[in-house]
């Protein structure tokens, strides 16, 4: 009885050790970081006359994944969190990059604005997994109304 208990303990120990080694190991895998100090001339805020309030909201809520510069939290240094974020940011930028706004054709700008509006309206963006940690990124009903009204105006002009 005692013996089998001991071997069981050993097995558990080995498993924990393997997991620890794996965890340490993946810390060495490099990830691409989405950071840039330069705001390109084509940025949404530079080519549009955006009211301060709207600009702040969009910067805080959208720019982490939809621009070339992410304000990373400290835990992004730890894998596998960094991988998860890298993937999100890559997809986000593919879909919409506010930094490249002026490079979009007018047709594309219109369809992007339409999608931005409907995503915010339906609470699909910002992602709930994101607002869970970034409380300030979520939209209050008042924020939603203001941002959507302004974006709709921009779209229809």
């Amino acid at each position, binding site marked *: 009885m005692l013996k089998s208990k001991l071997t069981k303990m050993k097995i558990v120990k080995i498993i924990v050790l393997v997991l620890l080694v794996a965890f340490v190991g993946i810390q060495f895998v490099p990830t691409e970081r989405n950071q840039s100090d330069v705001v390109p001339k084509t940025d949404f805020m530079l080519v549009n006359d955006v009211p301060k309030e709207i600009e702040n909201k969009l910067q805080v809520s959208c720019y982490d994944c939809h621009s070339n510069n992410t304000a990373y939290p400290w835990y992004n240094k730890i894998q596998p969190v960094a991988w998860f974020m890298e993937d999100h940011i890559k997809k986000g930028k593919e879909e919409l990059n506010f930094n490249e706004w002026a490079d979009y054709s007018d047709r594309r700008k219109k*369809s992007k604005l339409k999608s931005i509006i409907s995503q915010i309206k339906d609470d699909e963006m910002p992602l709930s997994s994101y607002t869970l940690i970034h409380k300030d990124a979520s939209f209050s009903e008042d924020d939603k109304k203001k941002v959507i009204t302004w974006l709709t105006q921009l779209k229809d002009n």
Partner: protein
Amino acid sequence: MRKLKLSMGILAIVFATLTVASCKDAKKEQNNEEEHQSEMSTEENHSEMNHDNSDGHHDEEATHDNSDGHHDGDSAEMTSEARDIAVSTQKNGATSAIIDAYFQIKNALVTDSKENAAKGGTALLAAFSKFDMKTLTDGTRQEYMEIAESAKEQAEHIVENPIDHQREHFETLSTDINDLITLLGTDKTLYLDYCPMKKVSWLSETKDIKNPFYGSEMLTCGNVKKQIN
């Protein structure tokens, strides 16, 4: 007791390597960032130069597109007058595959089928990739490319999203396909229908109204705005 000490020791070592590793990483990262920054700034200069070029170009496009937007607005206002007026366009069979795939999506949405709409999206992507751009004149190529870029993006979203999302992208897609027909023409007889609830248009191959934006909910809601060919 000895075993406990041993495992404590192992844990300590693991933590030590971890902190060392992350410190190293951080340092490396800093270096990287610095390098990256200088790289970025040279790149930036580069791209700025390019931008200037493309900017000039864009202005041209912008005015072009604006006039289009204007046109759209006009035709919406003219709905009542334009009704029952047949408009003939250039007879062009090259756009048929694209239009057929568009109808595949439309008819799937009419029957509330997400799966078939997704299949239609795939078919539309294929039709665009098969389209022979060599047949385009220099004047139409740029606009075609913008329309195709947008339409393909809508199609990709239609392939992978739930039906309410598909319908949203179908709205934009309808504008794109309508503009494509205005630009290049078709040899099909088509109907431009209007949904007063959504305030958007869609194209149909049949004269009967079958509304793709609401499906079975409001199947016959809408009217024919114009007949093409």
